[in-house]
């Protein structure tokens, strides 16, 4: 059954924007989505993965290696031909064990032939794609640590059970969770590149439109997909254009100064916030087809890049989004 088309998702503009930025610049460091259940978080993430053009993979390679980089494969890999494969989307279950995530000894081979062979885990499967974790706030802390580590380094190093393997694991980490059900530790939160707050659509018309589109998709997935193919194609072109422009994107000094001022005004600690803000602004400008980053690009992505890095202020009841908007209004009025 065909996936729900990305362009057919009603509303959720901020989440879609964050996903597009991550698609243009996967090094942004993942997206954390806060929100209630049933607001289409996972639908949007899956839809984006399905939308992206297929990638070339060495045939039968268990590590999803690209033909452009044959020496990166830890092997043993005898693949000679490359094949087309859709962008991987891995859904990490809550109860996943370290073995399943990192990879472990291949039990079957060990039992049958007594061979010591590494069986890649979910991280290898997510290579060059998306790793989605629903309710990441309920995931055990040690697993979250591990995932963020690999997501940041792009490499999974396994040194256990007598195995010593390292393989590429570059993926866009998408976490979702409802803060009311348990918070993520602030030091983990800070390591996500972008964060999004998803709310349920307030307007009746939007909700009715969602019901209508879901019913249409259920009744005839292929037909529904075809009806939205043109819209999806536009988004795809926008991403492709963004990816191409990204490397040549120029950041004027004035914008750098703006970014630094905004970070200090909102009280964001550390360099990570500033760097991510710049990265996000570049990706956004590239998506928009601009030649260089302008202040408007920076301000548009500021809530995404900074929201989750604000220190909690007991004397300030307003949400972090409001605080960023206020800082923007004060600084750049």
């Amino acid at each position, binding site marked *: 059954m065909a996936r729900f088309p990305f362009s057919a998702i009603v509303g959720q503009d901020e989440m879609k924007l964050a996903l597009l930025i991550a698609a243009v610049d996967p090094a942004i460091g993942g997206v954390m989505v806060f929100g209630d259940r049933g607001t289409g978080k996972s639908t949007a993430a899956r839809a984006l993965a399905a939308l992206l053009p297929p990638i070339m993979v060495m045939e039968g390679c268990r590590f999803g290696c690209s033909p452009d980089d044959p020496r990166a494969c830890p092997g043993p890999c005898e693949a000679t031909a490359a094949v087309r494969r859709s962008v991987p989307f891995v859904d990490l279950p809550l*109860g996943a064990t370290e073995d399943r995530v990192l990879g472990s000894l291949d039990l079957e081979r060990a039992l049958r032939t*007594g061979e010591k062979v590494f069986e890649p885990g979910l991280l290898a499967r997510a290579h060059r794609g998306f790793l989605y974790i629903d309710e990441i706030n309920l995931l055990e802390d040690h697993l979250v640590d591990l995932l963020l580590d690999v997501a940041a380094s792009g490499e999974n190093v396994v040194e256990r059970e007598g195995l010593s393997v390292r393989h590429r694991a570059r993926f866009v980490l998408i976490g979702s969770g409802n803060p009311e059900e348990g918070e993520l530790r602030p030091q983990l939160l800070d390591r996500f590149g972008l964060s999004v707050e998803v709310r349920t659509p307030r307007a009746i018309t939007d909700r009715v439109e969602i019901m209508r589109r879901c019913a249409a998709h259920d009744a005839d997935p292929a037909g529904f997909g075809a009806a939205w193919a043109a819209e999806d194609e536009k988004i795809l072109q926008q991403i492709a254009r963004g990816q191409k422009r990204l490397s040549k994107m120029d950041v004027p000094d004035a914008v750098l100064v703006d970014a630094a001022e905004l970070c200090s005004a909102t009280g964001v600690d550390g360099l990570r916030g500033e760097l991510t803000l710049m990265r996000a602004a570049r990706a956004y400008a590239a998506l928009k087809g601009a030649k260089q980053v302008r202040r408007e690009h920076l301000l548009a992505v500021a809530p995404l890049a900074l929201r989750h890095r604000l220190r909690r202020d007991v004397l300030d009841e307003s949400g972090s989004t409001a605080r960023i908007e206020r800082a923007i209004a004060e600084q750049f009025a």
Partner: protein
Amino acid sequence: MTAAAPAPTDPALADALLAARLVAAEPRLGGLCLRGEGPARSRVLEILRAALPAGAPWRRLPGHIDDDRLCGGTDIAASLAAGIPVHQRGLLAEAVGGVLIVPLAERLRIDIAGRIAQALDQAEAENGRFLLVLLDDGAEGDERPPAALLERVAFDCDLRRVCRLAEEAPLAAPRAVGGWLSDDGLDALAGTGMALGIASVRPLLFAAAAARTAAGIAGRAEVGQADLELAARLVLAPRATRLPPDASADEQTEPPEPPPPGDDPAPDPPGDAEDQPAPEALPEDLLIEAARAAIPPDVLEMIAAGRALRAARGGGGGRRTASKLRGRPLGARPGLPGGGVRLALVDTLRAAIPWQPLRRREPAMPGAGPIRFRRDDLRVRRFEERTATVTVFCVDASGSAAIARLAEAKGAVELILAQAYVKRTEVALIAFRGTPGEGGGAELLLPPTRSLTRAKRVLGALPGGGGSPLASGIALAGQVGEAIAARGRTPLFVFLTDGSANIAADGTRGRPRALEDALAAARRLAAERRHAVVIDISPRPRPEAARLAEAMHARYLPLPFADARALQAAVALAAPPERSGRRPAA
């Protein structure tokens, strides 16, 4: 109301039976949750089984199931016995095309729930659907199956009050083509969901599918008002988080977008259903009424107590933390035993055994036994422990409060202390009086302790008099609460005050500012989701204290109406839920 059931059937049972037929006819409805153990539930299961195609899988999920059995994998025991890898299919795969029954669903571990939720989502894309039946034996509203699963089944049926059984013959439900649902019908469902404060979109999709299926089963080509009402009653009402605005009072409170009649170029409204309302009655109002009447009593209670959000979390409430020694087993992790950490023997064996053929090829260490262990094989146990509660008393010792009934308040506190002692919980004491910076303000007189005598002594020596820096008191309570939570315990605040603040957070005098600051501090405490009770110690209950309790999302209790024992009961009620039945470390 239900056309399908004969008259003597209990309406709740009739609804559940209908829900069973609907999910059998339309697997996209996900399944159903049945609350309350008893013959009525067996009856519904019987009807569901009969309604499914013959030979459809029917699997029960044991609560202690492991990952391999649930999702499939290598069967280690069988593999070792046979000498070749033996694969087993997972229970989730076996249930495809049939039913997966989860007994004691309110106690289901979240990791298993997560797996099932994922399987349901994947099934949607890969045509591997199965119906999920949650058997919920939870007694209270705050002990419910995991929210991730409740969210993914269309129906939530309460059978706890059913006293008559249906004399209905089980019959196979034909796969019916769903009826056509007009735009007005969609609008009405969406409006009803909004009026009930349902945030998630899934219930709306379920409601639409349920209405269509109900029409299909009844042989109607088009969804009628009765079908919509059924969907509102069975799908939307149990998920209400607020009461709908009263339709008779004012229909303008509804979102102002009722589509103009005749706007839709689609076929005319059907005339075949006799229960079709007169065209001037707004279907949405009727739906909201139907839903309002069907909101289960415990959901109503929770809405009234302002706890809908918390209860909607499911999973039984109460904070959890991983522990090395006590509580529910969480599974094993690689690690070294010692320092209070226990070895998980079976998991260690499981880790070591696959390696044996390899290790036997290597020269044996002197004294090696039949099984060769390495350090990497060692697995240790972890448990999940319910967090202990720390009761924090925040006593207003200002002049106004002291003159009132500080002594009585102290008596009440002593009773609660005695109870805390029995339950081995800790207590802390904060007092606030006078002006901050002038020898007064809020002070932590007693940091969290188990020492009852110390607490009594400090309380007895507590002097009264001076201004009422309520805001500072609440702010300090917040800080103390944070420190308690950081140590993995759950704070419970008991405020004893008359609510008449007259010193603001910055130490200036003046009632309006002071009250405003106090309310702001109270709201922050509520935002932290702390449990609290406000006990009004003024001679006559005052609106200030009640407002304070409201801002704090706390239980409000005027002292004049409560003797010390009633107070104690109220505090026990407000305490964060705690489950009994902790298992000792194995």
